[in-house]
């Protein structure tokens, strides 16, 4: 009976520690991570496309501190200039489940790094890599694709959208469809 208690406490501890870990100093100084993610689920030959992930995704997506930093950086780097508070403006919406270039966190990281056609700038060299991951984690939280305790709550700001932790969960559709903002007359 006592051992069960200790074991369950230990199990909780593993879960809690990662969510609340505060890694300030990226160590070593971050070079770009190497993600090789397919944008399409199809592949030549049997099976799914071969992919290579750095594995950082889970670490950022499930960490409340990183997501909260991403929330700050989203405004600081003026992402809402084109994407508003996730609803999209001249840029596509980020809080829905439609992703032109893939909605997993590695896809979003690559989007921010490379830029994309039709207006998304490339931020390589201008936003350090760990901050790109933080912003990507925040964007994932917009669609409630992160654990609820890690997602940020409302901002101390005028409230235009529900808090990220209170939105209904979204599902990622790989290689999705053209969003309404891209269908508007140019």
């Amino acid at each position: 009976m006592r051992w069960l208690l200790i074991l369950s406490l230990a199990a909780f501890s593993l879960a809690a520690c990662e969510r609340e870990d505060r890694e300030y100093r990226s160590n070593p100084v971050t070079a770009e991570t190497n993600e090789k993610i397919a944008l399409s689920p199809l592949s030549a030959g049997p099976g799914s496309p071969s992919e290579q992930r750095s594995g950082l995704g889970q670490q950022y997506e499930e960490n409340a501190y990183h997501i909260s930093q991403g929330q700050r950086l989203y405004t600081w780097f003026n992402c809402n200039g084109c994407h508003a508070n996730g609803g999209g403006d001249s840029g596509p919406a980020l809080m829905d489940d439609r992703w032109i270039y893939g909605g997993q966190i590695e896809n979003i990281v690559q989007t921010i790094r490379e830029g994309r056609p039709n207006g998304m700038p490339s931020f390589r060299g201008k936003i350090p890599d760990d901050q790109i991951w933080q912003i990507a984690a925040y964007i994932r939280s917009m669609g409630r694709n992160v654990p609820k305790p890690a997602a940020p709550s409302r901002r101390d700001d005028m409230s235009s959208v529900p808090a990220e932790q209170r939105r209904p969960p979204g599902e990622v559709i790989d290689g999705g469809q053209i969003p309404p903002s891209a269908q508007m007359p140019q």
Partner: protein
Amino acid sequence: MTRAITSHDLDAVPEVSRLATGERGGVPGIQSEADAPPSPDELRDDQVDGPELTARLAKTWGTDKGLIGTLSTVDHKIIGRRFIVTAIIFLFLGGLSAVAMRMQLALPENRLIGPDLYNQLFTMHGTTMMFLFGVPIGEAFAVYLVPLMVGTRNIAFPRLNAYSYYVYLFGGLMIWVAFMLNIGPDVGWFAYVPLSGPEFSPGKRADFWAQMITFTEVSGIAVAISIIVTVFKLRAPGMTLDRIPLFVWAELVNSFVIIFALPAVVTASAALMMDRLVGTHFFNPAEGGDALLYQHLFWFFGHPEVYIIFLPATGWVSAIVVTFARRQAFGYIALVLSLIATGFLSFGLWVHHMFTTGLPQLGASFFTASSMLIAIPNGIQIFCWIATLWDGRPVFRTPLLFIIGFFFIFVAGGLSGIMLASVPLDTQVHDTFFVVAHFHYVLIGGNVFPLIAAVYYWFPKFTGRMMSERLGKWHFWLAFIGFNVTFFPMHITGLMGMPRRVYTYLPEMGWANLNLVSSIGAVLFFGSFVLFLYNIVSSASRGPLAGANPWDAGTLEWAAASPPMPQNFDRIPVVTNREPLWANRDSLPVVAGLSVENREQIVSTITHGRADLRESSPEPSIWPFVAAIATAILFVGSMFTPWALVWGSIPLAVALMGWFWPKPSTEDER
């Protein structure tokens, strides 16, 4: 079911008896009301005597052995002991975090502890000391001693009392486990918004703080209610209002302050949790909320909180000064009225924590006046105690030494508080180490030193053994010197510009030497607590045996055995004087007629203490423990989802139904 005590019952007892030993005695005239005739089948305590009475009552009032028995106990002494031990454990944990902080601050730009851990440490230190030690320790001593001092067998609402201990324990465990898992709160013990709000405090850290508040405040209010009812309604016959011991008055006033102050902080923490969890805008200026609202709510509680910590200590000081001056208290009425005045006035001071927030000046100056004015009732108390010592014959044993330390330290702290009460001076020293020095002087001088004295004083009653006098004197000097070496330099560092809550400081600031002195003092001061712990542990097993009244004190708890039997007194005493044991040295008058086989207490009138009713006292029950578990599930769950309030209330409802399920009373069967 209650039955009135009849004069027939009282006349049946031939003589006055000494309660602890059960010698024979008689009963002076006690007023009562004749009512229904007594049942002839039930065994009453006027029909049995001596050791047989003691044994039968111990069986009726005792606690079963085994795990279920231990968890079901409603004996106020066992629960009081648990409260005291738990609070002292939290005192040690808080002290360890303080020593860690002082080690980090000993050197400029020290790299012992980083900012994140340091922020968690000072938050845990403040939170533990204020919520998990400061308030509960006063309540703990009340739970143990008030029923003994008013001459009754158990506290009012014993199961609520048990429940509140478990809730307190779970709340304290929750936040310390969170700290061990690196999710301890790091927002300061006061958790100002917007720093503790949803945007700037990611994760669940601040939620643990807010929910711990809920746990401890439920527990605190429950105990306060029990104490008030005990003091008002369960006093021994003859204990009129002006014969109530000063300790009991202090705990009574304290309980009222608790009931009125704690809801404010529960409101603040609940609003904070709603902001964080559900997205309300209580404290969001952009949507019409106000960051200052939190400060008002918190400090409306926060200032009475420090009086909640101080008032029980005035009770300890009164009790110890009277015993060790060998003289009844001087100025009893003045002391009681000062307690009540302090309790009322403490609600009118809270804005002095907000003098630098830009509030209108005229309003702020009102709070300067009231903050300085509270020195008057405090001063009356100090002067009355000194007068008692003046006209007495001081006995210099360890408890009195610590009380003398209290005088030195607390008065100094109170006077630095007068400085802080002034708005302009406060703009310089607010949020610096000067404030840290001030409140440690008043809190440690005003609560911890009397607490240590109280432990030395009542240890023989709790355990039946005396603590070592030699170790006690070493303890006192180490504590006194260590405390002053630690905290006096902080007055100076604060004036030299060192703000609070900084994990390090630059070498060129010139604060390094004084901080090193403080840190050395902290080690000494902590060492005194280690010595204290050693004294407690070694005396508990090997100390010299104490009788019922080793200090020759005057209040009723010294008439019970050491440690007291489960029933406290074989027969309920009758009180004719403020110091019953000094007025009746040879034998204490008692009233008889309570059942021996069932748990019964005398309920008396509020002002005159006239015996009125026989009330049955609840039996041991496991439901308080179950209800506390259900409460913990409800509270912890609601940190993660608001649905926990819905689903979590179901087990709580079940537990409460079990608790209050009407049971046929044993009396009804007869």
